[in-house]
């Protein structure tokens, strides 16, 4: 089976062609063809996994099975094409095929009646193919190719409902922003190629092998390996929506919800994490550890930053989007603090429960017809299946220990961070708290209480949508048992992927770490999550703390923050803001001290921070992107005025350019001869 693993991405490609060509004539309007293909891929992935982990193939192949064929000759060198099977790619194959097949089944119900139904499944197949190619590619060129293809198909999927202008914009934004990161990725590939002379990852003259041999300090003492790692990380920053390139992901929620479940939970955004994990030897080879430090802090910052934004969102999918950004930050952060296994483990578990959350939110949207949680409420009774599966995944996301998958992976991350970097650990704990807080806010607002808008007639979704939910909820609980601290099958299989040398390096870095159950970390992790749930409960479920009371005082601040005043007339805005802030502070101090004491204060501070982050995000990060766009556009517009349409002007410009060039020639050769024309002329 392992020899035929190349069929796994090929089947969806064939399905893509068939569905695109025959579309409506195919069974199930093409849906069955696509689903059959991805299910076949799933079956094959499972077979590969069984053979690899249980059938002893891993031992037989020494932990790596790699097949290479020659692709294109460049000079005397060949660019190869090939696939490799190791524990990392098997895990990714499983994640991608499981989520992709469930999402496609779910889509039968969700996309029912869409005018472009077949094309949707065609795009889905192409996307799955690109993603599957990415995870088994053993060559950086092939990796980059499928990486770009993933971006392209996500462009098509996010913009699938192109009737909405916002969807169009979101699709374009996603494509362009991730491409900015890809420039870094490409530069990283170039640098690695220059340093190692190889494009293949594995093998005798592969990238990883050569990294150990070559000296890593470049000209002028530049730490080339660290730079290569950082450049590769740029690609991950773009794809995995890390700060400051995370702006595309919340907007990308304009796509159909199953697309969000696939792309923004399990596959495309995970590709960045996978990239860092796949290229982990590069980071380990960087003896300065600078690259990993950056990775860790970017991840940690993103994790907390996005989580706080999540508190203030009212669109169910946007909450989940920021949650995804935050959880991706967790994974990146974990990789940054040498939590190679933990990061991948979190990717593994997160894929299931986040896909489930997205699909559940899709079910809610399907049932109610709205995305605004302020209009929902009381859905628990009307949509029991959706509720229970959603709740299970929420608990998993919050990291409830022992009974959920997320609990295991989050704890492992914190355990590593506890050992290597306490700052990151603190951020992680705060993140865990915030995550629990906003997720339960979401759950309470959506499923509890009374329906807030009465013209919504919620109904449970059809069975074809519920079955994937149940399966994913099942996985959200049980997927974690492969990596418990007592019997960490995950770690045992994943670490050898690094190869003997880097395995040693990683072990040295983690020397002295307590492998196994760590009570301190457990208490912190569980405590923060429970505290978050508790806070959410007393604010939104049993309103001990009445947030509505402060809503007016807080509301105008929020509006003020969003107000254009700030951007347009900074001087005036600063004064007003100062005055308002002073007034608000006085008022708030009064309220807090008298009425609610500290507990409520925490809630407000978080929300304030969240809004400030949001404002910062909109103003600076989006602004930066806009400014770059503006500069590009303006330069283009200015330059085009050279083209006046008058031929004489063109010739004048030509002659002037020639004069400049000629003078440059003189300047370049002035030393080579006497330019003063004496001898020749009056000879």
């Amino acid at each position: 089976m392992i020899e035929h693993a190349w069929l796994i991405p090929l089947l969806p490609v064939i399905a893509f062609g068939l569905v695109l060509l025959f579309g409506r004539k195919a069974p199930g309007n093409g849906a069955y063809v696509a689903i059959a293909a991805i299910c076949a891929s799933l079956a094959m992935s499972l077979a590969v996994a069984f053979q690899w982990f249980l059938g002893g193939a891993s031992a037989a192949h020494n932990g790596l099975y790699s097949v290479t064929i020659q692709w294109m000759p460049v000079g005397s060198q060949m660019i190869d094409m090939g696939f490799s099977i190791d524990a990392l790619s098997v895990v990714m194959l499983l994640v991608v095929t499981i989520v992709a097949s469930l999402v496609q089944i779910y889509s039968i119900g969700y996309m029912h009646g869409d005018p472009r139904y077949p094309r949707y499944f065609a795009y889905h197949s192409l996307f799955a193919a690109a993603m599957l190619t990415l995870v088994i590619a053993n060559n950086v060129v092939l990796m980059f190719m499928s990486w770009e293809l993933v971006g392209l198909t996500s462009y098509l999927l996010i913009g699938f409902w192109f009737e909405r202008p916002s969807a169009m914009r979101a699709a374009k934004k996603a494509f362009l922003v991730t491409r900015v990161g890809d420039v870094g990725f490409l530069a990283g590939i170039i640098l690695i190629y220059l340093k190692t002379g190889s494009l293949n990852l594995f093998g005798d003259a592969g990238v990883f092998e050569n990294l150990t041999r070559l000296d890593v300090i470049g000209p002028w003492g530049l730490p080339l390996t660290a730079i290569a790692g950082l450049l590769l990380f740029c690609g991950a920053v773009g794809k995995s929506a890390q700060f400051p390139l995370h702006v595309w992901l919340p907007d990308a929620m304009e796509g159909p919800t199953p697309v969000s479940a696939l792309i923004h939970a399990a596959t495309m955004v995970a590709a960045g994490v996978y990239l860092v994990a796949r290229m982990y030897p590069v980071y380990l080879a960087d003896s300065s550890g600078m690259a990993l430090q950056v990775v860790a802090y970017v991840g940690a910052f993103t994790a907390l930053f996005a989580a706080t934004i999540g508190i203030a969102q009212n669109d169910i999918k946007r909450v989940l989007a920021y949650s995804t950004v935050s959880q991706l930050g967790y994974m990146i952060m974990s990789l940054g603090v040498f939590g190679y296994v933990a990061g991948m483990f979190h990717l593994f578990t997160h894929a299931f429960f986040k896909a489930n959350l997205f699909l559940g939110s899709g079910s809610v949207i399907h049932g109610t017809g709205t995305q605004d949680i302020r209009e929902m409420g009381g859905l628990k009774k009307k949509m029991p299946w959706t509720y229970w599966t959603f709740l299970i995944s929420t608990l998993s996301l919050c990291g409830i220990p022992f009974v959920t998958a997320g609990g295991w992976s989050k704890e492992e991350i914190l355990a590593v961070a506890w050992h290597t970097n306490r700052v990151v650990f603190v951020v992680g704990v705060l993140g865990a708290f915030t995550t629990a807080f906003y997720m339960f806010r979401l759950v309470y607002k959506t499923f509890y209480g009374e329906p807030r808008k009465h013209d919504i007639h919620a109904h449970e979704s059809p069975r074809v949508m519920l079955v994937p939910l149940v399966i994913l909820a099942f996985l959200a609980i049980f997927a974690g048992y492969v990596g418990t601290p007592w019997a960490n099958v995950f770690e045992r299989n994943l670490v050898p992927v690094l190869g003997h040398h880097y395995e040693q390096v990683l072990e040295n870095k983690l020397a002295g770490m307590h492998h196994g159950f760590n009570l301190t970390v457990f208490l912190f992790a569980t405590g923060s999550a429970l505290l978050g749930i508790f806070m959410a409960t007393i604010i939104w479920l049993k309103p001990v703390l009445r947030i509505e009371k402060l809503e007016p005082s807080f509301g105008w601040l929020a509006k003020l923050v969003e107000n254009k005043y700030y951007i347009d007339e900074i001087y005036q805005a600063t004064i007003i803001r100062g005055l308002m802030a002073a007034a608000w502070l006085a008022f708030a101090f009064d309220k807090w001290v008298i009425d609610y004491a500290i507990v409520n204060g925490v809630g407000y501070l978080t929300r304030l921070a969240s809004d400030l982050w949001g404002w910062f995000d909109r103003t600076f990060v989006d602004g930066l992107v806009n400014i770059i766009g503006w500069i590009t556009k303006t330069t283009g517009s200015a330059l085009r005025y050279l083209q006046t349409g008058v031929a004489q002007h063109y010739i004048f410009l030509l002659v002037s350019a020639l004069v400049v060039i000629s003078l440059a020639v003189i300047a370049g050769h002035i030393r080579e001869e006497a330019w003063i024309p004496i001898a020749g002329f009056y000879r």
Partner: protein
Amino acid sequence: MSHSAYGIPITWFLTLGAMLFCIGLFGMMVRRSAIGMLLSVELMLNAANINFIAFGSYLKLPTIAGQIFAIFVITLAAAEAAVGLAIVINIYRLEQHVDVDKMTAMKL
């Protein structure tokens, strides 16, 4: 100053060629009508021809290639003039004028 039957250094011819060339360039920039610009092009081609023939004659290893090149240049100048004038006449038929600086239908 050396004396000979000719007494004309090659630089005299070359400078003359350069002058003619630059006058041609100047004409390309200031002439308004297409035919005027065409005349200027002929001046520039002539400048190149003077160079070719001057080099062909003055080189210590005499070569006929300069004159051959010049013959081809003259031939192509004729062809170029033919094409140019054809285009100009067609434009005149369409627009009733041949002022190049009025032809700015396409810009941006």
